[in-house]
């Protein structure tokens, strides 16, 4: 199915799906989707915005809602979505596992444990959980890298991550039973993943971090393609396998840690978006990494918009992770079925 999507005029040669022209076309389309999602998210919501008032009266409540609530939240959604999408794609390629998601290497366990500890101790809700979550993620990454040093196969990293997640999950359950029940609600809310209103400084820092990490991942994407052939094959084609593995692991861990620190654990974006895009544009990571970044951004921003539009129904903004699952799951199954049917 995917070969059929190589328009003839862009094909470099029969069977080759990566070319400058095709990449530009696909990334442009996805970029437009992201921009459209951002615009929709800024314009729609529970508060009835008057666009004229936003533009003409900079001191009105409308303008404040737009610039201090809508725009920061949309930008945060784009940054987190891009991070999760790109990292998910890179990890699926590195681990040669289409079911890998950005949290699989223990990053989610580390972040959740960090945030839970912060909330249990009662650290101020502003920076405490985020900081602890970030530190927790990096600790998990360090553990995975340390264990992976002595082994060459990617399965060591995978297993370490899975085991660490299980350990963190048990530790969190333990903490939840020890602390008073009213605190448990906060922890559950953080773990479910949601987008809040961050300051411009935080957003700028997050954006810079993610641009750097996604940039590194994009640059390694050619080597990721070769790694998918197998360690020895890749090595025989000139890829420094161990070094590439470490670089990709560090970049994805930093990226995911930075995202989770701000948004909690938003699931499915890093799993579904790269997988979906692979069905549509092929397995070439040089295209998949940036496409997943743009697609992830658009998907998360739209999911967040949906949580806000559904507010009158539930009298609550659902955690955005719920919406990504409900949206992404069936869509993915449908596309998978179509792909199977064609081949």
């Amino acid at each position, binding site marked *: 199915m995917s070969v059929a999507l190589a328009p003839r005029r862009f094909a470099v040669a029969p069977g080759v799906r990566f070319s400058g022209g095709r990449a530009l076309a696909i990334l442009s389309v996805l970029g437009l989707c992201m921009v459209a999602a951002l615009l929709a998210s800024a314009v729609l919501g529970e508060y*009835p915005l008057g666009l004229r008032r936003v533009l003409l009266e900079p001191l009105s409540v409308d303008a404040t*809602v737009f610039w201090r609530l809508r725009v920061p939240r949309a930008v945060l959604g784009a940054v987190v979505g891009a991070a999760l999408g790109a990292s998910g794609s890179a990890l699926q390629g590195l681990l040669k596992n289409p079911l890998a998601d950005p949290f699989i290497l223990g990053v989610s366990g580390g972040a959740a444990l960090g945030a839970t500890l912060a*909330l249990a101790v009662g650290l101020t809700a502003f920076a405490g959980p985020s900081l602890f979550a970030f530190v927790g993620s990096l600790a998990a990454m360090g553990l995975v890298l340390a264990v992976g040093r002595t082994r060459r196969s990617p399965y060591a990293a995978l297993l370490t991550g899975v085991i660490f997640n299980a350990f963190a999950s048990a530790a969190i359950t333990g903490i939840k039973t020890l602390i008073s029940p009213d605190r448990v609600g*906060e922890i559950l809310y953080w773990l479910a993943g949601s987008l809040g209103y961050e300051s411009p400084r935080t957003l700028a820092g997050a954006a810079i971090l993610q641009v750097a990490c996604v940039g590194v991942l994009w640059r390694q994407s050619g080597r990721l393609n070769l790694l998918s052939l197998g360690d020895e094959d890749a090595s025989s084609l000139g890829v420094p396998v161990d070094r590439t593995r470490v670089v990709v692991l560090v970049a994805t861990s930093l990226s995911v840690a930075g995202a989770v620190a701000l948004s909690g654990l938003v699931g499915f974006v890093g799993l579904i978006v790269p997988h979906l895009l692979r069905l549509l544009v092929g397995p070439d990571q040089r295209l998949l990494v940036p496409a997943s970044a743009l697609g992830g951004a658009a998907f998360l921003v739209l999911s967040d918009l949906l949580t806000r539009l559904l507010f009158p129904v539930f009298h609550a903004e659902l955690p955005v992770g719920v919406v990504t699952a409900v949206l992404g799951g069936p869509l993915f199954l449908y596309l998978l079925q179509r792909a199977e049917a064609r081949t």
Partner: protein
Amino acid sequence: MSPAAALLALGVLAAGPGEPAAVQTLGPRAPGRVRRVVTLAPSLTDAVLALGAGDLLVGVSRFDEQPEVRTLPRVGGFVDPSVEAVAALKPDLVLVQLGPGNQRPVAALAALGIPILALRLASIDDVLAGLRAVGVALGHTDKAEALARALAETRAAVRARAGGFPSVRALFVYGFEPLVVAGPGSFADELLRDAGGINVAQDARSAYPVWSVEHALAAKPDVVLDATHGVGGREALQELPGLRQARWVTLPSPALLHPGPALGQGLEELFRALHPVVPEAGR
């Protein structure tokens, strides 16, 4: 320090550094004449209704079940009030019970230029202070003062009556599975002491400790106060020795769970539960 002890210590610290003041204002000053009020917790709605200012309410939390506010729009929950939904109602004043979970949305509201009155409501004194503050803000100062005074008098009366009875060892239960009881620093603990009871959980390490069944057996309370609203698990405990001999009382009204203007009623209910009108032989 063993890991378990360390974690428990963390739980103790859950009281948190820097407790907020009993009454706080955030954001700009409220207008002299407040016309539109949003409340973010049922206790606060109760306070406004008790002051006779129910017509000022334009939005409530999704946990509010009072018939008077049934048609009002909901703006979210305790940990997740929706900033935009509140702002869309264009309130003159927002009443909130501050907790670590909602600090960020509340700060966002204040930054939008919405006046906020934040109440702690952790003790009876907090409730009295809170009532007075709400009264001042809504222009019902006299009514609030009267209400607060009546509450204080009820409390004093109950305390006086309780003085004439022997103290009763009581266990106040919020839930059976797991067994969550009222510990020191909780609202129910304070009311219990006022009504002449001894909280068997007063040496617990937090305000809402989770107890093991054996711990409850060892405590041997005279009275078990069931505030669970019929959620299951009671039968299993009631059969056990140590608890079978106790008098089990189901508290009918939720007033005791909300630190609001109805606590006078709550106190009297509690008093009746601890010291029943018909004295039983041998007690």
